[in-house]
């Protein structure tokens, strides 16, 4: 069972308590965007065999959206962080680097 800690309420939640929301940090294309940009925004997704930054909702808990860094091959969770950021915070990136070095 995948367990993620909600960065808002601090609950270590089972995946049955959470709802997955797909790739994090997707930048919304504006009305002036060309077709390529809009296609990428709507359909093309990172699909790494390794660390994936993704959105989750603590749907059966506090209800908040948050982000997680999770390895799709090993299921190791490198950390969770609030959703109000446009890129992964440094401490998460450090944790990933540390796990890779080990």
């Amino acid at each position, binding site marked *: *069972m*995948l367990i993620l800690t909600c960065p808002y309420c601090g609950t270590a939640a089972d*995946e*049955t308590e959470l*709802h*997955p929301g*797909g790739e994090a940090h997707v930048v919304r294309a504006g009305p002036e965007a060309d*077709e*390529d940009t809009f*296609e*990428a925004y*709507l*359909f*093309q*997704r990172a*699909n*790494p*065999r390794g660390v*994936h930054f*993704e959105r989750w909702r603590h749907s059966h808990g506090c209800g908040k959206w948050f982000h997680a860094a*999770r390895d*799709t*091959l*090993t*299921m190791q969770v490198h950390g969770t962080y609030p959703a109000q950021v446009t890129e992964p915070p440094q401490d998460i990136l450090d944790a990933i680097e540390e796990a890779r070095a080990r």
Partner: protein
Amino acid sequence: MKHYSAFAIAREALRNHTGWQRAWRDAQPKSRYDVVIVGAGGHGLATAYHLGKNHGITNVAVIEKGWLGGGNTGRNTTIIRSNYLQDPSAAIYEKSRALYETMSQDLNYNVMFSPRGVMMLAQTEHEVRGYKRTAHANGLQGVQTEFISPKRVKERCPIIELKGPRYPVLGALWQPRAGTARHDAVAWGYARACSNMGMDIIQQCEVTGIRSEGGRVTGVSTSKGEIDCGKLCMVVAGHSGRLAEMAGFRLPVESVALQALVSEPIKPCMDVVVMANTVHGYMSQSDKGEMVIGGGADGYNNYTQRGSFHHIEETVRALIETFPMISRLKMLRQWGGIVDMTGDRSPIISKTPLENCFINCGWGTGGFKAIPGSGWATAEMVANGTPGPLAEAFGLERFREGRFIDESVAAGVAH
């Protein structure tokens, strides 16, 4: 290679089975091929087979990171059906189902195709309307399906409980000519036929890079050295994203784990395939007597080939209401496969931004049934350089152009 026949069995029985040959040649790579196919699963092998059979192209290598048919080809629940809603889907899946009917004869290899019929249960009013619509659409497409009453459901499959409190059976979409086949035999039959035509099947050969010149593919770098090719076709399902990255483009595909499980073998108790899409479960009985159960897909990206246990719990919890007799069965094995999901739940058979490089992926949770039709259509595209009538609707450009082939509603979760 020697022809398999009743006579061959009799002959070998008289000489202690010393005359059997290897079914196919485990080859090492040559320096160049006209076509290199990445992925020796069903779709890759079927593509190679139809390149040789339909288009006379036999200087072909099928390279595989693991072993023959070791990915989703050997992990699915072997269901073959073509009762889709949209016209392009019906065309390719029906072509596929028809090819399965004669596959054992075509390949001279018994794939144990069993047209036992597939029943998709309607357990909500919404599903009743949906399946009636599908039955009408199938009528126009030339696919033989029919919406049947609960009484006929019970006649076809007596172990079903019609009056489940949570999931009553209100009817079913019945496709009498759908069924199952032996999945490993499909891979081995194609491999044998391809090997017979002089093609090389190269196992444990991982692609590490894709070489190109002036926007045109020239070869692949592999763990067994450099291989030049005229044309390249990627048929690697859940790992398509990684190959696309090597070739320099992105795909509208995400990889998730889909699970299945089998019970201990029991005496024959059902001779149809039953799918219950409301509860994400489907079941059939294998020739060995095991109940083969397919479950739901995980909601998040995953390459672990295991999947989340709670999906198994959900599936089994719901299925024992519809099939009360399975509640005391022991489950023997559970496994997962990595399926490549597209936004509209329809596959991609397409040219790519790299010239002479083609891709076949995105079959999601329903690839096994499509193997021969997909191979037929992909071979046509690779041979002619442009998709033919079966494949043209499945191009990558459909996402940009908004021409989706929306099967996510029509097919539900279970494929």
